[in-house]
């Protein structure tokens, strides 16, 4: 029982870690705004999403009608640390647009807020399930 609840928050833990790492990268981009030959750092969330979520086709629900929706069972891989490699997207000279970086920082902090709100919602749902 407790194990399932733990697994419930595994994905949230990963995502929050990634978000905070992205904010670190953006902060380092802003800090190195005038450093020559500095490579811009960024996280590619699309690639990470494909790596984290592997769709299990074995455990799919049995469908008897065409109108039934497909329910995917997502399995989260345990090796999360391997996704925390940064990617150097720009190998040109230092061309960091500081205003763009500030906006990105704002965006990722808002996304962090959203994740926290969703975790709170999850916890509330678990309480509801326990108390009935």
């Amino acid at each position, binding site marked *: 029982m407790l194990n399932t609840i733990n697994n419930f928050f595994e994905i949230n833990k990963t995502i929050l870690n990634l978000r905070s790492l992205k904010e670190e990268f953006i902060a380092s981009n802003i800090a190195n705004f005038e450093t020559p030959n500095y490579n811009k750092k960024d996280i590619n969330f699309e690639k990470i999403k494909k790596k984290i979520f592997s769709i299990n086709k074995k455990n799919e629900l049995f469908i008897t009608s065409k109108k039934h929706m497909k329910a995917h069972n997502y399995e989260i891989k345990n090796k999360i640390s391997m996704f925390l490699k940064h990617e150097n997207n720009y190998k040109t000279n230092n061309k960091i647009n500081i*205003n*763009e970086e*500030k*906006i990105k920082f*704002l965006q990722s902090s*808002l996304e962090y807020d*959203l994740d926290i*709100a969703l975790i709170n*919602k999850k916890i509330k749902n678990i309480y509801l399930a326990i108390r009935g």
Partner: protein
Amino acid sequence: MSLIDTMNMCSSSMNVEEKKIEIHTNNIANSESIEYKNGKFNPYTAKVAILEIYKNKNGIETTRIKEIVDTKDPYKKIYNPNHPLSDSKGYLKLSNVNYLNETINYLNASKRYQANLEIIQTMKYMILKTIAMCK
């Protein structure tokens, strides 16, 4: 997410305004300078930025500076035969920087910068309100 796209537009506009403020300040600072070009001493020519629309990676229309060109205002002339750079008739060319224009343009640019900041703040507020719906 369109709210974030709006923020990115504002960021490009802010870049442009920063650069414009830099140009106007440079014009005022160099209003008495003399440039050495093609073996001749010339007074400083005022510069102005020309903007253009361009689409970024996400297909959003933003703004950027196309080029920085010299203005075509006529040079001022004063009679000063003792100056080493004055011509045979004793007239000295001065730069074509118009203080009034530069100051007004500078104020305009800073006002536009502030407007963009306010848009960004409003967008942030809206997104936070949207997040509050999930709680």
